[in-house]
């Protein structure tokens, strides 16, 4: 048996142990110590909304309605802001059959007007005020904003297709009739045929509002959700 080789190994082991011991007493800094600050760094973004009177003036809700809305909002998100994951979770509870994450993502971007990644109560109220108490023009504007993913003022076919696919995803698998692959695409084609007046492949806000105002069905169902609160 070759003593040299094993002796070398033994010496190595002793050295390693020695280093570990020195580490133990901080004489050699080998690893980073987890700092105390990191633990308390669970910095929850806390946000307090504007005063009740201010919100009442800015939106079209009464004080009571704002109170009710805020209580529900605060219950779900005590920190005062909704981030995207929470929003997706909440939304997916309403559509148990399908996958609503993509559509929730688009919705979140539509509500998050200042694009800071979180929806505060003011953003929430602003959006709801338009949707529930706004004029037809404002509502259509909001819908256009929802479809216009990159907010450039034009709805392209690709953007519409993304939105349509997200909506069809929410239906899930078990539908009647069976969902076909190109159902969203067909729907987009129909939509563009109706909306795109000058056939340039994009829908602008004016084309959109004009076409919607001409359609009876749309106009009639605009008042549909007014008694939501």
């Amino acid at each position, binding site marked *: 048996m070759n003593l040299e080789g094993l002796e070398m190994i033994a010496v190595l082991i002793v050295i390693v142990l020695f280093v570990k011991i020195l580490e133990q007493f901080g004489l050699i800094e080998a690893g980073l110590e987890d700092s105390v600050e990191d633990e308390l760094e669970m910095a929850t973004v806390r946000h307090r909304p504007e005063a009740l009177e201010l919100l009442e003036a800015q939106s079209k809700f009464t004080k009571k309605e704002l109170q009710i809305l805020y209580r529900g909002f605060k219950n779900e998100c005590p920190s005062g802001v909704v981030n995207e994951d929470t929003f997706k979770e909440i939304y997916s509870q309403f559509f148990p059959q399908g996958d609503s994450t993509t559509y929730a993502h688009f919705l979140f971007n539509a509500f998050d007007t200042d694009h800071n990644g979180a929806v505060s109560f003011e953003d929430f109220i602003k959006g709801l005020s338009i949707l529930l108490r706004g004029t037809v023009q404002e509502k259509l504007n909001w819908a256009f904003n929802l479809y216009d993913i990159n907010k450039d003022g034009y709805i392209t076919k690709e953007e519409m297709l993304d939105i349509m696919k997200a909506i069809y995803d929410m239906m899930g698998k078990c*539908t009647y009739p069976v969902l076909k692959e190109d159902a969203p695409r067909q729907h987009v084609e129909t939509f563009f045929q109706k909306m795109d007046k000058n056939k340039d492949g994009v829908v602008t806000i004016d084309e959109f509002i004009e076409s919607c105002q001409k359609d009876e069905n749309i106009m009639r169902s605009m008042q549909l959700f007014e008694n939501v609160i």
Partner: protein
Amino acid sequence: MAAGVATWLPFARAAAVGWLPLAQQPLPPAPGVKASRGDEVLVVNVSGRRFETWKNTLDRYPDTLLGSSEKEFFYDADSGEYFFDRDPDMFRHVLNFYRTGRLHCPRQECIQAFDEELAFYGLVPELVGDCCLEEYRDRKKENAERLAEDEEAEQAGDGPTLPAGSSLRQRLWRAFENPHTSTAALVFYYVTGFFIAVSVIANVVETIPCRGPTRQPPREQPCGDRFPLAFFCMDTACVLIFTGEYLLRLFAAPSRCRFLRSVMSLIDVVAILPYYIGLFMPKNEDVSGAFVTLRVFRVFRIFKFSRHSQGLRILGYTLKSCASELGFLLFSLTMAIIIFATVMFYAEKGTNKTNFTSIPAAFWYTIVTMTTLGYGDMVPSTIAGKIFGSICSLSGVLVIALPVPVIVSNFSRIYHQNQRADKRRAQQKVRLARIRLAKSGTTNAFLQYKQNGSLEDSGGGEEQALCVRNRSAFEQQHHHLLHCLEKTTCHEFTDELTFSEALGAVSLGSRTSRSTSVCSQPVGAGSLLSSCCPRRAKRRAIRLANSTASVSRGSMQELDTLAGLRRSPAPQSRSSLNAKPHDSLDLTCDSRDFVAAIISIPTPPANTPDESQPSSPGGGGGGGASSTLRNSSLGTPCLLPETVKISSL
């Protein structure tokens, strides 16, 4: 600003009179104070328990819920108090914070609940007072760790639910990590285990002296030298298997860099490397010494068993987590060894023929004595040496006993955590089933709502009112929302059974054209916003279309099974849809009765599982149709065998 500072402000301002004589410029005018209403008592009603406090108390911390205008959202004008629908016991602590400036942590409450209350009232966890801070942080850390570990275990044990479209790599990796998922993986697992055992046993047996057959002075050779070829073949086979396994794992690993750095892969490499080095090493004497050394590393193959044994892994984790305690143990032992070895050396220096030739030589004696082994190959002979030797052995007992309880408690914690993870995995199935049940419950409720809605027009108003009243406002609105989605996409929600039946029937190819035409009727322009529930007249028409759609669904299934005749052409108008049931049913029986039976199809799908139908587990149109047909007194025996056929679809 801290708590009491606000109360001292008037004093500080009053004392500013002392500056007046010294000021060189006129001092600024005082700020207009709002009509001070004097201090008022606020009533905070938390779930019925009334708390009363001065307004000033709450104003001390303006960046919390109670101290800011945010509390106005919870003000109830009728009763003049602030109402919070939260836990009154926890609120006590929150209010005490305002009063005393220190936030205390309740000992008997769940730390998570406390955290949530803090978040609700806008209090940052750093405000917890020093007296309770340690405990709070410890409990929180423990909770967080436990949740993180549980989550990890959940994700790791996620084997059975891998998506269908996974690549070969992903499937291979899953087979390696969870051998219980497929038989091939299990076979592989046992084969590698067997070969590890064979390899280790071969290593051991190699060194046993075998008696040679030649009965000369019994040359005791190790077996390895007597049967070199056999052992070499066995070694080669094992190494081939290990190499193959390692390469497969490397191929399948989702993150190769991370895999290469992981402990198990290092062990694998160390286990098979000596063989390859031995293959390529020249057979001269100088280097073969090192080669022999390398063979020692073959014993590391035994560590490969840790993949197969959970106990080994637990032991490994324990040692890793007790690293600091072990380090302390080593350090104190080293100190003691050096001290006592030095003392013993100098005590025994005078004796001749002594074993204690140097201090390092005395290390051996010290270690053997401190761990109470006492081999007796080195013993002190002087009196001083014996005295110091006994002190050495006593102190050894103490030093070694100290860190052991910490290690034991760590081991017990990790062991229990493992048990908990196993239990969770076992309950995973139950949990998934419960979630699925909840989801299908929602869907069934919605389907029932739809079918009840179709009764609106045809059935009696009383029944409809009863059905509708049973649903809460929330449910009604939720169902309305789902209905709107259906109208938007022109597809309806169904439950799984009907869907699979529909899927099967689609392959017959007669449906698709029909379905799109059904769909295109009420939608018109197909814009997103238009299709949600237009005015009443249209709504009724749509509901009828719905019902006829479900009717036609049921009847279509009957059609298809009833000897697959009469492929009616795609109907282009609603009236022809209505006509369809009549057409198909002239086949067998009285059309009116059949239609009546079909319109009363909407026995809620939730009921059908209860019915004792062995062959039809229930579900929308098909099952419902068969049940009502069976129940109704049609007396059409010709239909019954067909209904059985439907349910066996």
